[in-house]
């Protein structure tokens, strides 16, 4: 049963003096999956990864690789390899020697080394780069060599510490797809850490959202996006319109949330049954959950629908990802609404008055008030 | 930036030369006297008295025979107004490098000097009929012993005996070669005029000193180091200056200077005028001033050695006179071998001998 998982953490914690960098983290990563750890900078991702690689010992808990505890096993004897944040390619060796380094340390014979290096370089799409110096490579090529250097060792788990962080946007978009593809082809388990939610969502089978040393939620990208379990996840993953309010009275299947700055929003009662009346809450509504319509075509009142009017302040045209910023007429709240990709509202202009509507089931409320400052990755 | 110490030193010499020349220009105005001398020969109290009497500012640079010659050679005899080389080291370097100028004896009060020493020094420092030196301080090289631990050391050769094995020190300089030659029954001074004969003597001494080397703790360089070695008991016998022995005798009565049976080596340090001296009158004033008996006695007290000043003995400390008489009974005094002038060229031969001794 246990060896179904390539990697398992049981209640792992790490303290630096009295500072808790990683707090009671448990995870299981099935064989061959792409697992991401997503969290803001400083939340403890690197520390967790370094414990997996063996550069740091956990203060508490246990780490198992292929079902065996690796506590006390030094990094050079763990069947995992790491792609470092700044890649850490050896500038004193050429590309082929970099890739061959691990095989040499294992005492593999020369012919096999040459063959495997050539294969691996071909696999990452750089078959002729062996004799090149590291300084002659572009950013993306360095990236691939760093990965090749690990892959050639056929590790049980490949650890990647924000490997795309140093690349420019265009290349990053490209490498995301390529990495995912590569992982899919070779079938090695990847543990990928990043602070960029789009990287995590695009590439991963499973994502763990980490905050202040703890896992907030682990699940598929879709899960995290559509069913965030905490305010942090809701705010960090994807974009949302946010308000603060208190839970008001229930009417049928719906509960009314009274916004602090005026106005009322309906939410599903069933989804928020645990919130007592009077509870302070954070309210999240995704921009694409809001339907818009011309003010002259007033929508039919549907039970449980939130229906508002607003004035267009700004049209943010971004092709398929275009949106508008709207000031709500009654309360003056600012809102962001995605434009339908059909182009139906291509002629929308600032100052236009429009109707907004979303169903109560699209409203998500979380108890408590997030400390301000943790604004997640709206990329 | 490949620069070696030797090269650096050479450039230092060059820089010294430039500095010396620049000093020439500036020197003339103020009444000053730049003295190149030995430690103890120009004590502060004497300088103070001289300045009070004449208003002349005295600047002292401490040195030794080789250093004086090197410094003056580097500047062509500039940078100083009066130097104090030993009498035997004037004629040769003068012929070779022309670093001194003749003394104007009419400006020196000859009556203040012990006549025999005055005449002997003048004779030894005469080149082409001109006199280049007059005597100032004299003393001897001999044995400095801890008599309680080295009772049987009577002559230089005894330093090579088993009794004092590993507890001996001497300088690796020319006086040591001369001393051992005398102790071996040879007469190096008689061979001064004959290079081949002199080389034979040097070869014999070289063999002896190489054989003697295991006996040597270390070759001493400065007198402070020597005094330290003797006081700590690390050595018990050395070839050294008489003053070193007397200094030690003040602290430990068992230690003293002993005139060796083959004769102590007598040296006389002189006054000589560098070729480019600017302040000649001030230099003559200094010579006449320090040769006054009461002033000379102050210098004896500070340097530990007696001077060529007539009548200065009367002012000298009794303790020093006692030590002198104990070290030099009349026959030892008669037995002193006074250095004749070193002919130019011999030092090159001696240098090679010394190098070989060091290397073996």
């Amino acid at each position, binding site marked *: 049963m246990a060896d179904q998982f390539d990697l398992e953490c049981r209640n792992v914690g790490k303290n630096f003096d009295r500072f808790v960098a990683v707090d009671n983290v448990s995870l299981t990563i099935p064989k061959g999956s792409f697992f991401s750890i997503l969290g803001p900078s400083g939340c403890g991702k690197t520390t967790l990864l370094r414990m997996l690689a063996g550069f740091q010992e956990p203060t508490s808990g246990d780490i198992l690789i292929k079902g065996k505890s690796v506590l006390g096993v030094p990094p050079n004897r763990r069947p995992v390899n790491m792609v470092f944040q700044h890649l*850490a390619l050896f500038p004193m060796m050429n590309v082929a020697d970099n890739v061959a380094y691990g095989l040499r340390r294992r005492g593999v014979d020369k012919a096999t080394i040459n063959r495997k290096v050539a294969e691996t370089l071909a696999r990452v799409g750089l078959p002729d780069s062996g004799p090149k110096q590291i300084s002659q490579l572009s950013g993306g090529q360095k990236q691939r060599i760093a990965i090749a250097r690990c892959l050639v060792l056929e590790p049980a788990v490949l650890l990647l510490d924000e490997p795309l962080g140093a690349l420019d946007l265009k290349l990053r978009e490209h490498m995301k797809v390529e990495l995912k593809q590569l992982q899919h082809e070779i079938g090695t388990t990847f543990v990928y850490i990043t602070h960029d939610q789009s990287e995590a969502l695009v590439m991963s089978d499973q994502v763990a959202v980490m905050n202040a040393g703890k896992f907030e939620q682990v699940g598929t990208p879709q899960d995290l996006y559509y069913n965030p379990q905490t305010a942090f996840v809701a705010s960090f993953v994807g974009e949302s319109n946010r308000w603060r309010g208190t839970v008001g009275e229930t009417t049928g299947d719906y509960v009314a949330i009274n916004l602090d700055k005026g106005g009322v929003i309906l939410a599903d009662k069933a989804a928020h049954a645990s919130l007592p009346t009077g509870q302070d809450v954070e309210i999240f509504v995704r921009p694409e959950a809001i339907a818009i319509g011309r003010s002259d075509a007033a929508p039919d009142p549907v039970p449980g629908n939130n229906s508002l009017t607003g004035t267009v302040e700004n049209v943010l045209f971004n092709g398929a990802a275009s949106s508008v910023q709207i000031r709500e007429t009654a309360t003056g709240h600012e809102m962001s609404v995605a434009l339908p990709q059909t182009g139906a509202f291509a002629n929308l202009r600032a100052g236009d008055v429009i109707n907004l509507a979303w169903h109560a089931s699209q409203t998500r409320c979380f108890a408590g008030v997030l400390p301000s400052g943790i604004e997640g990755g709206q990329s | 930036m490949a*620069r*070696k*110490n030797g090269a650096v*030193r050479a450039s230092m010499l060059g820089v010294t030369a430039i500095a010396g020349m620049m000093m020439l220009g500036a020197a003339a105005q103020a009444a000053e006297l730049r003295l190149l001398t030995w430690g103890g020969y120009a004590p502060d109290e004497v300088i103070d008295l001289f300045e009070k009497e004449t208003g002349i500012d005295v600047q002292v640079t401490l040195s030794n025979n080789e250093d004086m010659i090197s410094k003056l050679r580097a500047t062509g005899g500039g940078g100083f107004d009066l130097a104090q080389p030993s009498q035997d080291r004037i004629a040769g370097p003068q012929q070779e490098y022309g670093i001194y100028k003749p003394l104007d004896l009419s400006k020196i009060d000859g009556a203040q000097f012990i006549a025999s020493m005055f005449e002997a020094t003048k004779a030894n420092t005469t080149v082409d009929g001109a006199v280049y030196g007059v005597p100032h301080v004299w003393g001897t090289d001999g044995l400095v012993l801890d008599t309680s631990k080295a009772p049987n050391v009577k002559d230089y050769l005894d330093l090579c005996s088993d009794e004092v094995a590993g507890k001996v020190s001497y300088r690796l*300089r020319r006086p040591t070669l001369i001393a051992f030659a005398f102790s071996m029954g040879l007469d190096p001074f008689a061979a001064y005029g004959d290079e081949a004969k002199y080389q034979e003597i040097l070869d014999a001494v070289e063999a002896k000193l190489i054989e003697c080397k295991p006996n040597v*703790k270390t070759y001493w360089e400065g007198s402070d180091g020597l005094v330290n070695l003797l006081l700590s008991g690390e050595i018990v016998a050395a070839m050294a200056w008489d003053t070193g022995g007397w200094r030690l005798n003040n602290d430990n009565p068992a230690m003293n200077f002993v005139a060796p049976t083959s004769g102590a080596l007598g040296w006389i340090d002189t006054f000589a005028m560098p070729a480019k001296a600017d302040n000649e009158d001030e230099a003559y004033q200094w010579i006449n001033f320090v040769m006054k008996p009461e002033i000379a006695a102050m210098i004896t007290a500070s340097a530990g050695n007696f001077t060529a000043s007539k009548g200065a003995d009367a002012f000298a400390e009794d303790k020093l006179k006692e030590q002198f008489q104990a070290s030099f009974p009349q026959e030892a005094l008669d037995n002193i071998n006074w250095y004749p002038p070193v002919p*130019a060229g011999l030092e090159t031969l001696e240098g090679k001998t010394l190098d070989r001794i060091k*290397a073996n």
Partner: protein
Amino acid sequence: MTAASSTGQGNGVRLGVVLLATPLLLWLLVLVILPHVDLLLVSLRERIAFRQYEFSFANYIAFFVEPLYWNTYVRTAVMSIMATVLTLIIGFPVSYYIAKIMRGRGKNVLFMMCLIPFWVSELVRTFGWMILLRESGVISSFLQWAGLVDGPVEMLYNDVTIMVGLVYTSMLFMVVPLVSVLDSLDDSLIEAGYDLGGNAFTVTRDIVIPHAMPGIASGCIVVFMLTLGNYLTPNLLGGKDSLWFTEQIYTQFITRFNWESGSAFGFLLLVLSSLIVWIGLKLSRQTLADTVR
């Protein structure tokens, strides 16, 4: 008009460069080139008689036919190389510890401790060693007090002591360039080495040393030069057996008044050290430019 003003500006810039370079050029000319030219000329003459000199290679010939000078020369070179290697062997782990393992205050303290001996002059430092090592010195007394030896032991005046003194004197000049070059080595390179299966030995050999090579080369050059040109340490600690080529040069100049052979020796030392440094650079595949980066 435009042309005129632009040339005027060009001249201004050029004048500025010349003015800036003047001290350097003067320094090079007066303190480096002229003395060496003079030295070369002096070394190529032979004394015939009083104040008479002739052009000749006699001083160089004398060096090669007299085994004494030749031996001293070789001995100095070999001991200097040994001292350099020893300094490197001791200095490298110290530097690694300072640069990579120590953190914060401890790092500075350790670095300062390497500096402290250099707050006093070389003479004082060497006398310190003499006080420790001499027969009536601290260590000898301690050994006797502890009952480990029966009589006083003399630890001065031998080649081992010279070596200890030279290594001690040179340590700083090795540690400073090594610490700075090791500081610049990204920790993750070392970790990557381990991560890929390396052990302490292979990581040091394959990653740390290649990275540190310019620092090693410059440290070695400086230490070698200083050791070769050292005068006080071999002289004072070596006592009667302290044969050292610089001492020989000094003796030729100062106590033998033989500037001719002193200059020749000086030149030979220049050639020797340049040659050894050149060979060292070739062997380590470094260039002089690397070492001053």
